[in-house]
C-alpha cells in the first residue's frame, strides 16, 4: 500500500459561514424585468423587441492546493521569500516553478533557496479601474519586480511612492504585510532609493493629467465604498 497520509498539520480554519455563503442563490431567480429593446442583426435594420430578464445568483467556495509550490506560499505566512533554483542550469525562479523549463534541463526538479527582500522594477502600471475584488483599493500601482538574482519577475504592488515616480530600473525593497494569508498579496514593495526625475517616463503634462485622474478615482472609490474604501495612492 502506497504512502497516503492526509492529516492537517497546521491551519487557520475558515469561518464556516462561507459554506452557507457558497450555497447562496443556488441558481434560483431572485427577480425579473420585462423590457423593451432592439432586435436585429445590423444597426440599419433594427426593430422593437420585448425581453424577460431574470436575476440569478450562485456562489462557490474552492479548496485550492498550491501543489509543489506550497513551500513558497507557506513561506509568506512565515515571512520568508523563497525562489526555486535549477541544479542543472542554476536559474533561480521567482515566481517559482517546481520543474525547470530550460530545454536543456529536461523538466528537472528545482530546489528551494531563500531570496533577499530586494530587487528592481521591470515594468508597472497605475490602476484606475479594476475587477470586483480590487475596486476598494483603487487607485494602486502594480509592478513586475525582478527579485535580485532571479530570471523571472514577480507581480506585486508598490507602495509609498507617487505613480509618476515609478520607472523600470527603480530599486525596491520587499516587505510582508502584518498578517499574511498565504497569497501573493502578502508581499509588496517600496522604493529603496530616491526616484530619479530624469528617468520618469511620463511627460510633465501627463503627470498633471495623472494627478487629476488619481483625484477622480479616489473620489469615486470613496463615494462607492464609504468607510470601506482603502485607496492605495496618496497624492
Amino acid at each position: 500500500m502506497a504512502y497516503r497520509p492526509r492529516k492537517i498539520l497546521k491551519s487557520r480554519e475558515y469561518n464556516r459561514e462561507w459554506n452557507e455563503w457558497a450555497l447562496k442563490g443556488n441558481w434560483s431567480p431572485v427577480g425579473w424585468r420585462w423590457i423593451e429593446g432592439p432586435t436585429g442583426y445590423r444597426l440599419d435594420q433594427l426593430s422593437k423587441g420585448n425581453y424577460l430578464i431574470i436575476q440569478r445568483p450562485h456562489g462557490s467556495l474552492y479548496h485550492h492546493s498550491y501543489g509543489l509550490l506550497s513551500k513558497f506560499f507557506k513561506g509568506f505566512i512565515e515571512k520568508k521569500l523563497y525562489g526555486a533554483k535549477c541544479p542543472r542550469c542554476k536559474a533561480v525562479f521567482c515566481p517559482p516553478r517546481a520543474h525547470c523549463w530550460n530545454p536543456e534541463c529536461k523538466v528537472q526538479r528545482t530546489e528551494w533557496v531563500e531570496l533577499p527582500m530586494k530587487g528592481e522594477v521591470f515594468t508597472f502600471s497605475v490602476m484606475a479601474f479594476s475587477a470586483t475584488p480590487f475596486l476598494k483599493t483603487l487607485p494602486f500601482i502594480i509592478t513586475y519586480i525582478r527579485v535580485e538574482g532571479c530570471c523571472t519577475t514577480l507581480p506585486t504592488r508598490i507602495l509609498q511612492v507617487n505613480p509618476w515616480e515609478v520607472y523600470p530600473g527603480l530599486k525596491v525593497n520587499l516587505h510582508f504585510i502584518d498578517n499574511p494569508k498565504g497569497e501573493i498579496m502578502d508581499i509588496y514593495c517600496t522604493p529603496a532609493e530616491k526616484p530619479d526625475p530624469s528617468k520618469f517616463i511620463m511627460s510633465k503634462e501627463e503627470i498633471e493629467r495623472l494627478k487629476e485622474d488619481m483625484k477622480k478615482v479616489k473620489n469615486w472609490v470613496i463615494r462607492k465604498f464609504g468607510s470601506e474604501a482603502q485607496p492605495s495612492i496618496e497624492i
Partner: protein
Amino acid sequence: MARRVAVVGGGISRFDLPRYELQEEMCAEAIHEMLMDTPGIDYPRDVDAVIYSYFSDHLEEQLCFHWIIHDYLGLLPKPAYRVESGGATPVDAIINAFMFIKSGIFNNVLVVGFEKMSELDTPKVNEFIAAASDTDFDFPVGGYYSGYYAALEVRHMFLYGETVEDLASIAVKNHNNATFNPYSQWRSQHGTSYIGVDEVLDSRLIAWPYRLLNCAMISDGAACIMLTNEENAKKYTDAPVWITGVGLGTDTMRPGDRVDNPMYKGLYLKDESIYPDVATKPAAPYPEMANFGSIRVSGDAAYKMAGIDNPLKQLDLAELFNPYDGVELVEYEDLRFCKRGEGKNLVREGVTEWGGELPCQVSGAHTAAGHPVGATSIAQAVQIYWQLTGLTAKKWGTKARALSDAKRGLLQGHGGTGCQSGVIIFEGG
C-alpha cells in the same frame, strides 16, 4: 498537401452591449446572413462539420453551450466541437477548420463564434476574464488584463519612446473607422461623428497609459464563416477567397516570466540587437516584456506558407488583435510591418490609417467595433472576405471604407497577454 482551402461566405450579428437575443439566436442571424449572400450553399446538408468558438463558460453561465447552438441550428448529427484559447479562440477555430479541409477529412466546415458578456457588471466581467491569467500570481495583485497589458506597454514605451498621443491616434483611427460599420458597437453607442486625440486623452483613465477609448469593449455578438475545399468553392461562388497561409505561436502564461526566457533566447538576433542602452539587457532581449514573441512566430509561419517576404508591400489590409492600442503598435513590429521600435513611426506617418499604405482595423476592431471574444476574429475574417470580394460597400451601405482592388489580407488573433497567437493570410481569386 496541394489541397486549397477557400472562404465562400460569412455573416455577422452586430456587436453591442447588451444584445438581448440569446447566443443561439445571434448565431442563427449570422448564418442566415451568410446563406443570403452565398445562396449556393445547400444548408445544412452541405455542412460536413462545425467548429464552435466561444471563450468563457463563466460569462455565458453555461457549459457546453455549443450543444445548444448545434441542435438549434439544425446541424445534428454532424461532427462538431468547441475550441477555447481565450482571445485566440476564434482565430484558432478558423485554423482548425482550415486543417480539417487541408487534411481531406471534411470538405465543408462551418465556424461559428459568439460571446455574451452583458449578463454581469463590468468589474465582474473583468474578474472572469482575469481568471484567464495565473490565478495564483498575477490575478490577486489586481492588475487584471488592462493592468497586465498596460505594464507591457509601459515597458515598450520605456524602451522605444512612443507617447500617449501615439496611442490616442490609434484609438482615433479605429473609432472613426467604426462609425461606418453597421455591425459596430461604437456606432450604436456613439453615433457617426468623428472623435479626435483630445476625446481619447480626456476619457477615463483605466490603467496608465490606457484610457477608456484605448481599451477593448465588452460586447455581445456572433459571427460565422464557411470554409470549403477547392472543388466546392467553385460550385458556391465565382469569387472565393483562398487561405494561403496560417501560423501559430506561443509565449509564457505569466508576462513577468518573459525576461530571461531560454526558449526565446537567440531566436531573433536582429531584434535583440535593437535594444536601447537605457535598460539593462535581459538574457532574452526579444521579445522580453515589450514585444509579443508568439505573434512574431505565428506571423513568420503564415508568411512562409503564403510566400510573403515584405508584408507592408504585399498586404492590402490587416485586421489585428487589438485589446489595447499599444498592442496594435507593437504588432506592427512583431508582424514585420516595420523594424522593432518603429511602430510609432507607422502611427505618425499614417501608414495604417484609411488611405495609408496598409490600412489596419478598417472594421474598428476590438476597441470600436466591439469584442465579444469568441466572435471577434471571425467577424474580422468576414470583413476581410467582404473587402477582398468587393462586398463591403453593399454590406456597410457605404463606399466610405470599401477598398478597391484589395488582393491580400491578414488576420491576427491572440489570447491572454499574447500567450498564444494565430495568423491567417487571405487572398482573393
